[in-house]
C-alpha cells in the first residue's frame, strides 16, 4: 500500500484522476457523436423508404393503366362482334 505522505503516490493519483477525467470527456464526445449519427441515419433511412414506397406505388398505378390498356388492346369485344 502506498504511504499517505508519499508525494510521488499523490502525484500519481492525480495523474490517474486526470486520465479518468479525460477518458470520461472522450466517452461523452463519442456517445454524443454516435447518438447524432444514428439518429440522422434512421431519419434518412425512413425518408428513403417512404420515397421508395411512393415509387413502387407509381409503378402499381402504371400497371393498373397497363391492365386497362391490355383490355382495350386485345379488342375482345371487337373480335367477338367480328365472328
Amino acid at each position, binding site marked *: 500500500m502506498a504511504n499517505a505522505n508519499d508525494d510521488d503516490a499523490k502525484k500519481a493519483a492525480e495523474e490517474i484522476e486526470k486520465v479518468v477525467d479525460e477518458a470520461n470527456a472522450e466517452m461523452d464526445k463519442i456517445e454524443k457523436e454516435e447518438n447524432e449519427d444514428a439518429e440522422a441515419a434512421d431519419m434518412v433511412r425512413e425518408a428513403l423508404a417512404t420515397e421508395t414506397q411512393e415509387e413502387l406505388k407509381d409503378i402499381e398505378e402504371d400497371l393498373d393503366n397497363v391492365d386497362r390498356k*391490355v383490355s382495350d388492346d386485345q379488342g375482345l369485344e371487337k373480335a367477338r362482334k367480328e365472328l
Partner: protein
Amino acid sequence: MPPESKSDPEQAQAEAGTEQAPEAAQSETEKRFAEMDPEEAFDRVAQGVKDAATSAKKKAGGLLKRLGKWGKKKIGGGIVKGARGVEATADGFRFAKDVTKEKARKVGDFLQHETSKATWEKRYNSASEAVKKKADEYWESLTDWDSSPALTAGKLAVGATVEAGKAGARKVVETGQAMKEGVINTAEAVADWKERQIEAVQTRFETAMDNIDSRRESGLQERVDRAQEVADKLMAAQSKVEELGLADVPFFSKGKKKLDRAVKRKGGLLAKLTSRLKRVQQRRAGRTRVPQEGE
C-alpha cells in the same frame, strides 16, 4: 329452319329405307320433296347449315370470351398483384411471401403454355367439326333425293355453307391466334417492364441504403478505435493503481471509484459500438451487390 322430317338423320335414314322397303321410303320422301318449291328446299337446307355454322361460331366465340377474361385476369391480377407485393421499409427491400419477381416473370410463360398452338388447333377443329357434322347430317338425309333437280341446288348450298362455316371457324382461330399473340406479348412486355422498373427502384434503394450504411460503418469504426484508445488508457491507469498500491489508500478512494465507474462505462460503450458496427457490416454483406459508380 330445315323441314322437321329431315333434321333427324336417324329418321331420315329410316325414311330412306334402312328399315322400311326402299321403294316405299324413297317414294314418300320424293313425294314430300316434290311438293316443295325448289327454291324453298334450297333455302331450308341452306338455313339448316347456316344455323349449324352459327352454333359453331358461337361456341368458338365463347372460347374467345373466356380466353379474354382469363388473360385480363392473369395480367391485371397476377402482375399487378406482383407489384403490390413489393415493399420498401427502413429495414430493406422486401417481397411479399407469395409474390416474387420470378413469379411475375413466369406469367408470360404461363400464358404461352395455356394458349398453345395445340389448344387453338383443337378449338378450331372443334368448331369446324361442329359445322361439318351438322352439314353431314343434312347431306345424309338428302342422299336418296338425287333424282330431284332441287337437290342439286340443295347439295350445292350445303357444300357452300359448310365451306362458309369452315371459313368462319378459321376466322375464329385466326382471331384467337392474333389475340393470343397479343396477350402473350403484352404479358411478357408487362412482366419485363415491371421487373425492370422494380429492379431499378430496388437498385436505387439499396445503393442509397448502402451509402448510408457505408457512412455509418466508417463513423462507427472510427468511434470504436477512439473508445479502444480510451480503454487502453484506463487499463494502463488500473495497472498503475495496482503497481503503486493505491487501491486502498484513503486519499485515492474517490479517484478509485471514479476509475471503476469509467472502466465499467468504457465496457458498455465499446460493447454498444461494436455491436452496432457488426450489425451494419452484416447488413452490407447480406445486401444484393450494389453497382459501383460508372457501372
